[in-house]
């Protein structure tokens, strides 16, 4: 009898934990969406903030985040894929390549604020790019590099060696093998990694704090060396440093809603690609 009670306790422990975790997610989403949906409207997405940012919309923040993510991807994608291709296809496995891989894995775990520091020292200061969407995009690009390299390498590894050997046997050069056979086969995996990186970059705040984000801009960012507004920073400012915090609380909730919707849609796209690819094999 005691044993039966003990088993029940164990069962409660395990399922209770799972339930708690699920509940946490539900509470987070419920709180943000329920209080944010009332602020979200077409006006909200398409207008500038007005009246000292207590009314109006968050258009510049949305555009800024999209522009920033675009720049990040433009810089991180080629370098990341090229590095992964080099490590996996060209370089001979040696002690050096193992060290390099270990370094990349550890760099993925470095706090994002340290990337911000580096971006400040390198892009803003040394390269004299100033605080701009370019500096911030490059910094986020650095942040994303380890992740893109690791996911691309995993995608490349999944391409069976027999395919490479067959192509080479037919007379293709190594580059042609990579270009026409390996990369297309690994493309879904690479794409998934890129989209997840974009989703992460869209939500990052710490690296852009000192490399180019602004509290308010009075026009849309049109050139790469202007400052920009961004959704995560906007949320941060509206909830901690704005003049009338309580008045703008609904706007903060709305911003959080839009940010989470953006991040989730990117994740869902990545998930869909991964799902479709898996069912193909």
């Amino acid at each position, binding site marked *: 009898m005691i044993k039966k009670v003990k088993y029940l306790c164990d069962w409660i422990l395990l399922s209770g934990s799972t339930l708690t975790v699920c509940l946490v997610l539900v509470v987070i989403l419920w709180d943000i969406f329920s209080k944010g949906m009332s602020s979200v409207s077409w006006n909200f997405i398409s207008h500038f903030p*007005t009246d000292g940012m207590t009314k109006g919309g968050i258009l510049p923040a949305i555009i800024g985040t999209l522009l920033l993510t*675009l720049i990040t991807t433009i810089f991180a994608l080629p370098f990341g894929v090229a590095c992964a291709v080099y490590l996996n296809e060209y370089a001979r496995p040696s002690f050096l390549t193992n060290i390099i891989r270990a370094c990349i894995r550890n760099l993925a775990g470095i706090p994002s604020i340290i990337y911000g520091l580096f971006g400040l020292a390198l892009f803003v200061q040394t390269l004299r790019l100033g605080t701009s969407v370019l500096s911030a995009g490059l910094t986020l690009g650095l942040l994303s590099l380890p992740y893109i390299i690791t996911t691309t390498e995993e995608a490349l590894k999944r391409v069976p060696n027999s395919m490479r050997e067959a192509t080479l046997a037919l007379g293709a050069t190594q580059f042609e093998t990579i270009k026409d056979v390996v990369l297309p086969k690994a493309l879904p995996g690479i794409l998934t990694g890129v989209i997840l990186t974009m989703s992460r970059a869209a939500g990052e705040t710490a690296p852009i704090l000192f490399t180019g984000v602004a509290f308010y801009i*009075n026009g849309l960012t049109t050139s790469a*060396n202007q*400052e920009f507004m961004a959704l995560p920073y906007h949320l941060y400012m509206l909830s901690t440093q704005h003049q009338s915090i309580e008045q703008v609380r609904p706007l903060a909730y709305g911003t959080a809603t839009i940010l989470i919707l953006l991040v989730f849609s990117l994740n869902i796209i990545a998930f869909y690609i991964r799902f479709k690819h898996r069912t193909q094999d």
Partner: protein
Amino acid sequence: MKYYFNCLIVLLMSCSGDNDTIKIKGSDTEVNLAVQLAESFHRINPGIFVSISGGGSGLGIASLLNGTADVANSSRSINEIEIEMFQQKGSPVDSFVFAQDAIAFVVAGDLPIDSISTTDLKNILDGHYTDWTSLTPKNMPINIYGRQSNSGTHDFVRKRLGIDFTPYAKQMNGNAQILEAIKADHSGIGYVGAGYVAHRGSGEIKVLTIYNEKNEKAVSPLDASMIAAGKYYFQRPLFQYYKAGSYDKIRPFIDFEKSEEGKRIIQSAGYYPVNK
């Protein structure tokens, strides 16, 4: 693949010289005012791109020094060390006072104290008094809500009273967080720019009136005539610093601030016009 290169070229081409952006950074006290000014400025002068950030007076001056800002909003005056750093860089700095501000000391609406002397304030903020018993019948610990070291407001209060803040003072991220904290904490005391409390005459927050000597009349930071006469202990000019060489670039915005429209916006934000 070909789209990629086109994107890259367009991007790099847009990295042309950035002569039409005015970057304004600095004081959290001044940032909301700057935003309102920029919003109206945009209507008159849509060709000029203005970007504004807060972060504290220290951040503004450092950004000006580092070249990442054109105008530094500062609610404290620049100090000798900073002036020296500008001179070392070969770009001396000029200033423009665009408003006067008063620092309000706030407590919760139900705390039984209405006015306070500067001596008592000194003792509270440097940690000598740890509870309210010396000033009120209530025996509650004093919780101080202040700013961080990069804040001009923080710096001004410190220098005006000639003290060092107790390390137990909570360092909030901005004026607004301080007000939120005071509303929630009925034994707290904090300091904010008067502009933040001017329009919020709610019962939840009480602005203390300040007197210096025993027989002086206590002055409120919301009293425009006393501010104009320079009689409030914690009033100060709000500065905008800029590098002397870049005046032409920022002149449109400064001119706007000096105009009638600009002055109207400044006053409606709860600040006081400059006595000139």
